[in-house]
Structure formats: structure tokens, C-alpha cells
């Protein structure tokens, strides 16, 4: 049973990562490395995720239909896969963001009562 429980715990973390990926792609299509960089940069390096864990997350989002993928050329003329938010993904992001705000607000109120 232990393996499954670990996996379920990872799933919780991945859920957060999924949200970050969606948020990043809201700014426009990007390739994998660029997404990783963006997350690091925007969180001012607070969130140190292993870049590799980005890939299962991307594939999961594609499977759910929240992002799509297309071939393209990157800034220095290299072929790359570009990930793009779908309308379904956009709605999901809005939903997740609202939920996240609620949770964060609640925790903040508990930790720093007025």
C-alpha cells in the first residue's frame, strides 16, 4: 500500500504545480523550459520545484484537455513544443484560483488574527 499512499501525496503537490502551469500559460504559449523558468522567476525562486516534475504535470493537463500542444520554433530558431491554454483550461484556472484564494485567506486569518 505504501507506494500508493506516496503517490497520493505527490498528487496533492502536483495539484499546486498544475495551477502554476496554467497561470503561467495565461500569459501566452510557451515551451517546457520557458514555463519552468517563468515559475521560478515569478516566485522569486521561493518555489524550488524539480524541473522534471513539470513533465508529468504537462501531460496530465493535456490529457484533461486543459492545455494543448503545437510544434513551433523558439527564439533561437530551434524546434520546440509550445503549450497553450485551452478555453477549458482557462475556466479551470479561474475556478482553481478562486478556491486557492479562499483557502489562503482562511489560513491567513487563522495565523494572523486581526
Amino acid at each position, binding site marked *: 500500500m505504501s507506494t500508493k499512499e506516496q503517490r497520493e501525496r505527490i498528487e496533492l503537490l502536483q495539484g499546486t504545480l498544475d495551477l502554476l502551469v496554467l497561470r503561467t500559460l495565461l500569459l501566452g504559449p510557451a515551451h517546457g523550459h520557458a514555463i519552468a523558468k517563468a515559475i521560478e522567476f515569478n516566485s522569486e525562486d521561493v518555489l524550488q520545484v524539480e524541473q522534471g516534475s513539470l*513533465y*508529468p504535470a504537462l501531460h496530465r493537463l493535456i490529457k484533461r484537455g486543459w492545455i494543448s500542444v503545437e510544434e513551433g520554433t523558439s527564439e533561437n530558431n530551434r524546434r520546440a513544443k509550445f503549450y497553450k491554454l485551452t478555453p477549458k483550461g482557462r475556466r479551470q484556472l479561474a475556478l482553481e484560483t478562486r478556491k486557492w484564494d479562499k483557502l489562503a485567506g482562511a489560513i491567513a486569518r487563522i495565523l494572523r488574527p486581526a
Partner: protein
Amino acid sequence: MSQRKRMLEDLDADIRDHIERETQDNIERGMSPEEARYAAHRKFGNVTHVKEETRLVWSFVWLEQLIEDIRFGLRLLRKNPGFTVVAMLTLALGIGANTAVFSLLYAVLLQPLPYKDPSSLIVLNETTPKVGTVSVSYPNFLDWRSQTRSFSQMAAVHGMDFNLAGVAQPESISGDAVSPNFLPMMGVRPLLGRDFDSSEEKAGTPPVVLLSYSLWQSHFGGDPKAVGRIITLDGRGFTVVGVLPPNYRAPDKTDVLLPLGVWVTDNPEGAAVRGDRGDMVVIGRLAPRVAFARARAEMEGIAARLAKEFPASNDQFGVALQPIRDAFVGDMKTPILVLFGAVLFVLLIACANVANLFLVRGAGRTKEVALRMALGASTGRIICQMLTESFVLSLFGGVLGVALAVAGNRGLSHLISADMLSGSTLNLNGAVLLFVAGVVVLAAFIFGLTPAIHSAKPDVQSELKEGGRTTGGGAAQNRLRGALAIAEISLALILLVAAGLMMKSLYRLLEVDPGFRPDRVLKMGMELRTQQYSKDPAVLNFWQQVLDRVRTLPGVESAAVATVIPLTDNHSRSDVTIEGMPASAPGDYPHPDVHSVSPEYVETLGITLLRGRSFTEQDNENAPLAGMINAMVARRFFPNVDPIGRRFMFGHPSATKPSKWYTIVGVVGDTKLYGLANPARLEVYVPYRQSPRNGMGLLVKSAADPAALTSAIRDAVHAIDKDQPVFAVVTMKQLVSDSVATRRMTLVLLGLFSGLALLLGAIGIYGVISYSVAQRTHEIGIRMALGAPRGEVFRLVLGQGLKLAGVGIAIGIVAAFGLARLLSSLLYGVSATDFETFAGVAILLVLVALLACYVPARRAMRVDPIVALRYE
């Protein structure tokens, strides 16, 4: 290409590309190339692991989970061998019983008949208000066929039996003479040779036969050259024109088929007289898109027109239609459906028991479940996992159940005669296995779902806080377990009531006085059909010789020949006119069964002689015509006068023919000709010498075991005529027993299933009470420490069990009250709401419940308060 495949194919390149970009970034930040690559890898993490995780996203997650769940379930089942064995055996009994009964149900009610589109094949008979269904007369068939529009085709089938000679032991075989369109209409093609030709319906048809597959095998060794050979039937040569396929089926055994023209040739009178209803049924195929009801309405109209047109022969004669399946099923439908209901109850009880076991075990697992849910497993996931476990268990139970059914099949075939199956066979075919698979899935849901849902919603916090105590359960679970035990008791009660009612019926039935003494009497049949017996003196000479020879055999007390033997299919009836009675309307004449018997008939069968005398050797062809009547004729037609010396004649008085009056010499008791459950009928007897018949039954009363006489009697008959078959040899005792075979089968199986239900129900109560005692050890300890006497503790536990049993019995009685009505057509001499049966079964269940609670109650009584309290 699937999205999954496309995405995974590029994964390696994507990851390589990613790491390269990161390395490049690092170099731009001033690292050495080697350092940069190392840092990029570190930042990316374990590449293999990432690939695996990504692949997992696309994998068939449910399948992998299922396999994992099955493995987990198997591990748990292995870890609790006691639980596993008990649950599996319980399920195996339930599923095994269902498998066995379903194989019977399939064979009789569902197995497709080997005809083209059998659902549009209809069997037609004539019917009269007085006797019910009767055979069809040939002229009526011809009119039906020419006038119907609802039927696209119609064929007549006339039974024709033959003596097959020229083989080691002469035998009687059964055949059907059929319209030439019969086989094409049924969608049956001969395996070998040809079908009948449309010209073979008229008189003058040369004698030809189609052999059944089994006759072809037994008498021609399956030789394909049999076609064209000659087979001797009734001393006449018939050319074999073909062989029927092995799966050919008719409601009764058929050895040969002949074209109807052969029957027409042999019976010119029977084929021409409208009032002559021999042994003919008609089978029709409904025209496309014609409903059964419309066909029936049309045929009733035709019959009514014929009745008006030919009142002498057709007045009051209607037509009866039945789907061909019904002709095969006969009276087996209700018993089979009742048995099927019974085994479903047994299965439900078994499921309730297993559900109870799961609940008890689930209680021990609450902590595990709570922990897993705290770690994030969803309720659905837990239920799924528990159900998988149930499926694994159910599957094992199913496999074991099928094995049980196979083992039980031999016992079943003892109880079920070939007659009841009418040509079908009991076996485990695909349909039965499919049914078992369905039962396995259904059972897994029935016994698995409730405990699964139950254990998937434990109060996580309290369970984890409660520490090491494995009390589990709680009030809700105890209530559920109690409810399951109650359900088991109710179901068991219903089955026991059904079995009780059937038992009482059979007992009542076997108590019925059949009007004759079957003990030590052997019966056999003979039909004189060859040319040498075409004249009465030859026939009488044969029977006289048989009687003379058989009487001299050692051990024979008496012997007689008779046309009608009680409880067999043979019957012969005729309208009679009683001298001096006012003339009746054509349909209102007395219509008794007519027996043509030899002098010792009444003595041999032990029939009571009420008045006058029975026939003697002097009542021969030269003496005045004599007759006997049964008590019912005497009561109905001679209520206040002595019938001795009065006269009757067969048929109706006619101006053209002189009347042949029979003088009544004796009155005998009624006999149950048509089964013990059926009322006696009017009967008249005439001396066989004054009414010679070619087909008679020989009855021999023996001083000892009558069956031991069989070969001596055969030898005696063959000494007279070596080609004369002797068939249907059976003791009268066996005949009586066979006449209740269907009821006996129903009773034995119902008894078996209700016994099983009782056992499972007892186990159910025992389980609930034992568990509750174990749970309450602490409480019982306190009670005893506070001074409660042991007897009171004992009563406390028994009382708990009895409360469950009481509620179960009450619910069961109400349900049985409603359901027993479904049995009423199978009952005899007992009402479906028989008080004695209901009361007896209720008492039995109370006793069994007491017994089941006794052991746990004793255990409770022996609880040592010190130990129980220290246990805390």
C-alpha cells in the same frame, strides 16, 4: 496515432532539449560547460523517474489499480483463511444451487427448440367443454388448412406406433405420420436421404419412413447405406428414405416419421369421418406479422362455422392453440419457476451471511480504512477496493459452486425423468455459465456493497483516537448486522413454508385411495398389429393363450388383460345411452371411460366389487352382452334404484342400426385413472371377449416381487408369437410413484434448499449473537461484578437472539402468506395458508434460533468479571 503515443514518443527529445536549454542558460551565467550540465541535471531531477511518472499519466490507471486491488484482495483472503473458507463455501452453496436449477430451467424453458423461428409455431387441438383438449379429426384439419389466413402453413401429425420385428428382441417403436410440408415448415432437413414429397399425402402412398438418428444408430449402426434399405414394421416392409438430424426433437419420443399418406392409406375410414378424432395434432406456422390472439380469433371463427355446418360431429367442438414451447414444457413450468425462486432466496441468504462476515471483519479494519482516508484516499477508491475483494471472493465461490452443481447433477438426473425434460438434456452449456457469471457479479454487489459503503465512512478522527481497542462497529453496524440476520430468517421461513406445504401435499396425495391395490402387480403392454391378427378370433386366441400360459407360471396369483390401465396415458371413452333415460342433447350424453377387461381384472388390481358379480369365463362372445359400471355411474344415473339388470349401449340410439344393449351385472369402486390428484371419472367395463381389442395391457399379480416375473412372461409371450413385442414393463407400484414424480422432485429440491436456508440462517444468527457477546464482554463483566446472576446473563443473550428471530419470523410469515399463493397449483389437499404448516415452521425456526444462541449464551455466562474488567 493516439495522443498518448504521440506525446510519449517525443518525451525523450523534449527532456533532452530542456536540459540542453538549462545548460546553455548556466553557461551564459558563467559556469564551465561541465559544471553547467551537472547543475542542469540536478535541477531537473531523476530523468528515469520523470519519464515513468509521465508515462503513468497516460497509462490505463483503472486497469493497474484493478490488478493491484485484486492482489490486495487475494492477500487479505489468504491472511484470513477461516473467513475465506466460510464465506466461499456459503457462496458456493448458493451459487451451486442456482447453477443446478438454472440448468434445469434452461433445458426446459429456454433452450431454443431446433426449429426455424420456433416462436411462430403453434400447436392446434380441438377442444370440448366436457373433456377439454382432444385430437383433431382429419377432415377438420383439411378445412382449417384451406380456410386459414393467419397461418402461412399447417401440417397434421398423427401418432403411429409400430412393432419392429426381425431384430433380436421385438420392440414397439413410436412414429408420427406427418404432412409432407411438416419438416420444411419446421425448418428441419434430413441428415441423409430425402424429405417427403408433396404427393405423399394422398391414399395409395407407398410405405416409406425417415429414421430418427438414434434408431439409425441402434439398428443400422449409423450406416449411410441404410437409406434405400427395408425396415419391417408391423410385418410390413417400409423403405428407408432418409435419416433425421440428431437434434430433432418432439414433445414425445419419435423413432420414425412417415408421410401422412401412409396413415390415410391404412385408415381410409379414420381419414374420411369428421367425427373420428384419433391421435392427430396440427402444427401451424403463423403468417408474418400475425399475432397469436388474431390467429386464435380466426381459428375460433372457423371452428364455429364448422360446428354449425356439421353439428353431428362438431357441435360444441372448439379449437385450442398453444405456442409450441408450451407443448414441450407441459406441467413443468410452475415447479421450475418455484424452484428458481427458492434458489434465489438461498442465494440472498448466502449473500446476507457473507455480508455479515464482511461487516464483522470490516469492524477490525476500520483503523486501516481510516488511516488510508486520512492519507487522502477517496471514498470511491475505498469502496472500489472493497468491491474488488468481494468480486474475487464471489468468483472463487462461483467456481466452487459450478463444481458442486456438476457433482449434484447426477443426483438431479435421478429426480428428473427424461419425460420431464421432453428431449432436452441437463448440462453446463454456455448459457448456464453466462448465468453463473451474472450471479457471481450480482452476488458480489449484494454482499459487498453494503459493507464497503459502511466501512468507507468511518469517523476518521474518533477511529484514530480510539487507540488499540478493536471494538469497531458501533450502533449503526450492529443494527445492520441484526437486519441482515432478520432478513435471513424471513427468507428461510418462506422456503420452509413452501417445502412444508409441498410435503404435506405429497403426503396427502400418497394417502389418496387410488381405488386399486398396486402391490405386487406387474404391468406390460402389447399391441397386435400384424396381418395375422386382423380377425377377432385370432386376437382373442392370442390373449387367451397369454393368460393361460402366464397363469401357470410359478408365483403368479392371477392375471388379466385390459385396455385401460390406471395412471397410464391409454384411455378410451365413448358416449353411452342408458336404457329408459330421457334422450339427451348431442353433447350431453354420459361420456365414461370404457374398459375392455378379462375376468380376473377386478381381482388382479384389487378393485372393490360393490354389488353383483365381476366377469367370468362365461361372459364370452356367445353369451348375452354384459357390463359393469363404477360407483360414480351408479350414483349419477341410478341414484335410487339397483343398477343390476339395467342396460346401456354405446353411442346414441339410431333408427337405422339395431341397438346393442349391455346388461349391468356388477358395480365396482371408482379408480383414479388420471392421477391421484385428479377426480375419479365415470367408468364402464365390458368383457374383452365381447369387445376384442388388439392393444391391451397385461396385468400379473405375483406372490412375491412382480418384477422377477418379467423374463418368464416375455418368454411365454414369445412362445406364442416370437415377433410380438412386449413393452412398457413396469410395476403398478412404480406407476403410482411415477405419477407423482414431478411433485416429488419439487418437494425434494425445495426441501433441500429450505434445509440449506435454515442452516445458513442459523449460522447468520449465531454469527451476530456471538459477535455481540464478544463485543459486550466488558458490559457483561460489569453486570456480573454488580451481582447479576449467571442465569440472567444467559437469558439476556438468548433474548437478544430470540428478538431477531421473532422479527424475522413475523416478517417471513407475512411474506409467505402472500407468496404461498403462487404454489397453490402445485398443492393438493392443503391450503396455501395452512395453519399447521405455518405454525410448525415458526416453531422450528424458534428452536433453531435458540440452538444458534445457546453456544454464545453459554460463553457469556462463563465470562469471568475479573478478566473482563482487567481487559480494559
